[in-house]
């Protein structure tokens, strides 16, 4: 027998009575806390920024650019945007920022996303904080009960995310106009919007639910060669789902911030032609 550590008493998890008597919650010596800390900081920064922008209800349009946070704009109190993504579905009774109406959908898509679930379960809820690091919770029921059982609606948010990505694509096309609505022009903002929409589509299509819908649900790929190809394509994107999740999160915030800078008069959009 080695040192005289007694078996654990009346405790659970790695300190359960039958397990090796080690009192430390983990024995990791690497910087396991770094990834969840950076993730928490990044997500927190985005939440703070997007909350400020979504509720500010100002500086979201500078012809020909409309902030992705306010597109489509579905209330009467939206700014006039010539040929822009306006549709007065909510009328005049909607008094607060119109961004709130539409942001529910990308927010829901990302909240229920399989990558973001991992990210916030680890970094905010410490469930677990890192692999083989004991979590602080006495009970755990995972996604078996309300509210987390609602994560299963992810595919419906995916369908809405497709629509939103379609509208943002339309906004990117509109960005090839100048401030007088003439076509065939391009500015630095057009480039920002182009990068953003490519990343938004890549992230949306790399979704695990998308992978399932296009072909993953099949038992025999050999009977569905086109869907098999589509599944392989989505699978290649899906392998980079985490990177695309972060890249598109940053790009959508940058696109919004760019419009904010233009609309608030900080500088003028450099025009290429």
């Amino acid at each position, binding site marked *: 027998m080695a040192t005289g550590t007694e078996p654990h008493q009346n405790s*659970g998890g790695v300190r359960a009575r039958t397990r090796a008597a080690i009192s430390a919650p983990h024995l990791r010596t690497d910087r396991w806390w770094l990834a969840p800390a950076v993730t928490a900081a990044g997500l927190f920064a985005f939440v703070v920024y997007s909350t400020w922008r979504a509720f500010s209800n100002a500086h979201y349009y500078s012809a020909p650019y409309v902030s992705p946070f306010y597109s489509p704009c579905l209330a009467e109190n939206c700014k006039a945007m010539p040929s822009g993504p306006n549709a007065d579905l909510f009328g005049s009774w909607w008094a607060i920022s119109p961004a709130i109406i539409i942001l529910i959908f990308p927010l829901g898509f990302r909240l229920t996303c399989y990558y973001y679930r991992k990210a916030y379960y680890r970094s905010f809820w410490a469930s677990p904080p890192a*692999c083989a690091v004991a979590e602080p919770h006495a009970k755990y029921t995972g996604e078996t009960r309300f509210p987390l059982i609602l994560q*299963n609606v992810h595919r419906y948010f995916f369908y809405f995310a497709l629509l939103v990505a379609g509208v943002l694509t339309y906004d990117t096309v509109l960005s090839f106009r100048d401030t007088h609505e003439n076509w065939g022009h391009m500015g630095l903002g057009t480039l920002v919007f182009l990068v953003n929409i490519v990343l938004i589509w890549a992230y949306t299509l790399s979704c695990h639910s998308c992978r399932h819908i296009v072909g993953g649900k099949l*038992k025999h790929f050999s009977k569905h060669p086109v869907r098999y190809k589509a599944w392989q394509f989505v699978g290649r994107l899906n392998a980079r789902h985490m990177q695309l999740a972060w890249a598109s999160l940053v790009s959508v915030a940058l696109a919004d911030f760019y419009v904010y800078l233009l609309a608030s008069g900080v500088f003028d959009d450099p025009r290429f032609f």
Partner: protein
Amino acid sequence: MSGYTAHFRVWRGDAEGGGLEDFKVEVNEGEVVLDIIHRIQATQASDLAVRWNCKAGKCGSCSAEINGRPRLMCMTRMSVFEQDETITVTPLRAFPVVRDLVTDVGFNYQKAREVPAFVPPADLGPGEYRMFQEDVDRSQEFRKCIECFLCQDTCHVVRDHEENKTAFAGPRFLMRVAELDMHPLDAAETSGLDRKRTAQDEHGLGYCNITKCCTEVCPEGIHITDNALIPLKERAVDRKYDPLVWLGSKIRRRPAGG
């Protein structure tokens, strides 16, 4: 790299208690942690209990936790550590300890028995099975599993919550359910066994919160979360939580198995 002396701390004890014991031990170029454990056993602690077999990363016997991370001792090179680093080796902390580095992994065999086996197609005899490679690719990835149970050990659902062991099969056996559900010739559905539904109802798929530790520790590099658990969750959604899929299944007849 010439030889040097390393500082090891190895957990020794049994279900009655135990602790970390210090060893100064010789390390030579090209060695792995299991070599060092064997040297300790040969020179300093002849009664040190350790389970091992192939020393080639294929039998899955020498699972342990090295500096707190679930790993195979035979696949962990000493060259990944600094020479002055203290290396701590403990048994798997999700399972009952038997003695020293040996744990009772019977939980996994119990869970394995709970997964209904492959259901042979009624119209095919032995030797008549024909499959397209693209149809079996997915299942074959999961067949690489060497049953080391590192994924089971690291999964916080059972590691941190002993009480969940009854309801939750763990990533290794949910992957087994996925393997069978994706198998082109598995006839479970025609025999009345709905693996998509039982994954959730009987094997505890809902407990998984897809934090990917199983994938991180898999020595075979199987994408357990992305290729098995999440696709299985999506299949369970088809059965239990998606009204459109349910409606579609009522309206039009779909050939069995797709």
